[in-house]
């Protein structure tokens, strides 16, 4: 499919000034209304004419959706808060350094100044076949072009694939899952709150979406409970170049230790599946073990169920090493 980059097709632009107006618009427009956060990805897709929405709801003017504040013991982050603000905010850095680091690793300073936390976790996959406009499974077709004998799939999934092998490109999503964040979803009908882990979906459950957000719904808040505030953490992102690139594999972990013993951990991998891949079995296996032993065990078992494709076997070793380093404390803050 040819990519046209001269100008984007026209659409009706709505710029609500408050959340109620945004929700009313989202409810009224339904699937025809495209929610625009920072626009880093959306505008590119409009110009490429791979997405041609009839209406765009720009959330940039909705003050309720931006900012960082304490709410009791929780830290509440508005989804329209820029990644730069998340990475630099003193409360985030003090309590949840993992999220600050993850946000600071996204793309490049220019992108982080414009891109938002909500946009980063809700963004679509970067699979180049899908992005090229091919009618693959995720686009409503009947084939995954990446998972063919001729497919180029070095950046695709090694875990959780079900027909589609695209991955979630978000750096902040694994951090939010590790920190047991809760996401508040708003709509004209009301609000619902879900664990970050349940916010993301794999192709086995829904092959056309990466999140549970439905038409008419808006991500309202990202709430970080105190459970892991101030805990040691680890975050590593491996990419082809040190800036402006998506992860080949990223890893977010938070740990509770007593001396040399690892009491509890939450370890989440990114860019290995269509959703942040929590290693719950590893967490259970390493709890209560001496740290060195736990690290060796975790590294060995980290992605035992992985099914690499023709060009991404390296991700298995990469993930194993990242998990080992996180548990062993090589990157712990």
């Amino acid at each position, binding site marked *: 499919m040819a990519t046209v980059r001269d100008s984007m097709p026209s659409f009706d632009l709505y710029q609500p000034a408050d959340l109620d107006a945004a929700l009313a618009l989202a409810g009224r427009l339904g699937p025809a209304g495209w929610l625009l956060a920072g626009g880093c990805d959306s505008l590119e897709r409009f110009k490429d004419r791979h997405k041609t929405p009839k209406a765009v709801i720009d959330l940039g003017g909705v003050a309720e959706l931006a900012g960082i504040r304490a709410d009791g013991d929780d830290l509440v982050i508005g989804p329209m808060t820029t990644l730069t603000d998340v990475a630099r905010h003193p409360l985030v850095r003090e309590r949840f350094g993992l999220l600050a680091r993850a946000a600071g690793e996204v793309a490049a300073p220019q992108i982080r100044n414009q891109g938002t936390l909500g946009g980063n976790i809700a963004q679509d996959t970067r699979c180049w076949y899908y992005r090229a406009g091919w009618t693959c499974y995720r686009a*409503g*077709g009947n*084939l995954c072009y990446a998972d063919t*004998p001729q497919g180029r799939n070095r950046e695709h999934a090694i875990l959780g694939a079900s027909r589609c092998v695209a991955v979630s490109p978000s750096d902040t999503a694994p951090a939010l899952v590790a920190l047991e964040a809760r996401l508040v979803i708003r709509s004209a009908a009301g609000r619902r709150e879900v664990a970050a882990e349940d916010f993301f979906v794999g192709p*086995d459950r*829904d092959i056309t979406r990466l999140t549970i957000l439905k038409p008419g719904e808006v991500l309202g808040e990202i709430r970080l409970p105190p459970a892991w505030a101030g805990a040691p953490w680890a975050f590593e992102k491996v990419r082809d170049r040190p800036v402006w690139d998506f992860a080949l594999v990223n890893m977010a972990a938070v740990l509770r230790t007593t001396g040399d013993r690892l009491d509890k951990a939450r370890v989440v991998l990114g860019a290995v599946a269509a959703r942040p891949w929590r290693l719950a079995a590893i967490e259970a296996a390493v709890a209560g073990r001496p740290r060195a032993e736990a690290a060796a065990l975790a590294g060995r078992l980290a992605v035992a169920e992985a099914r690499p494709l023709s060009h991404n076997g390296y991700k298995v070793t990469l993930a194993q090493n990242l998990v080992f380093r996180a548990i062993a404390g090589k990157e712990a803050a």
Partner: protein
Amino acid sequence: MNLVVRGASPWGQPIILHAAWSLLWLCLAGAAAFVVVHALWVRRRAGAPAGPVPPELAGAFPGAVARHSFVARVFHWLMAACVLTLLATAFSPRFGLAFDWVGPHVLAGAVLVAAIAFHIAHAITCQDVGAIWPVPADWPQLRAVLFPPRDGAAMPRAGKYPLGNKLFHLGAVVVGLTLAATGTAMLWRVRTPFVTRDPYRFFGDGGWGVVYALHGLAAMALAGLVVIHIYFAIRPEKRPITRSMLVGTMDRDFYLGHHDPARWGGEGPAPKESAKEAGSA
């Protein structure tokens, strides 16, 4: 309304992607309309009596006339379980129920294909394979449905299978074999324990689109057929036939009232000679 959803191949050629899923509602609505119209029609029509039972025949057949062998009944209910599983796994996600449906769908489909292959072999070798196909001798049944007999005349009697059964089976054969053939081919498109995945083994993008479209269209037709089949299974006047699919036999009076011993003398040992003579009289 379109039958299929179209897209483009990577080379920009227009291709079929799959069936238009909105047709499911049409199939279900059609089946529901058939059920309602039939139920009203049955209530309004004057019920023609079953044929009289000649006394000499009553003594020629056991109280419970064998209709379906154990193997045939196991196949039927296994197929029913597979079909319901396949329909549920295929269409529940379209109603918004999100779950990992591919595995159960493929497994049920594989079992169904194996069961169909067994059924064909069993029917050819162990059963009267011709009994299930519509034949000219069934014409009086159709005529009696369209123009019910008057003056208390009896309804014409069927062979082993009433014409309605035969027509349903014919539809199920067409739809089922389409699903089995396309579904088997589609095993090469997903990762399963059965075959090594090779998505371009048989067809190009356009050819596969036709396969997916046929699979989807047949599946939606099957959903409608299943609704109609279940409706007839629970109708009061059909319950002896349904019961025979559970226990294998039907009551002698029902048999002699609705079936023609000259065309079907029951399964198992042949009836007494007098029965044959009376039946053909």
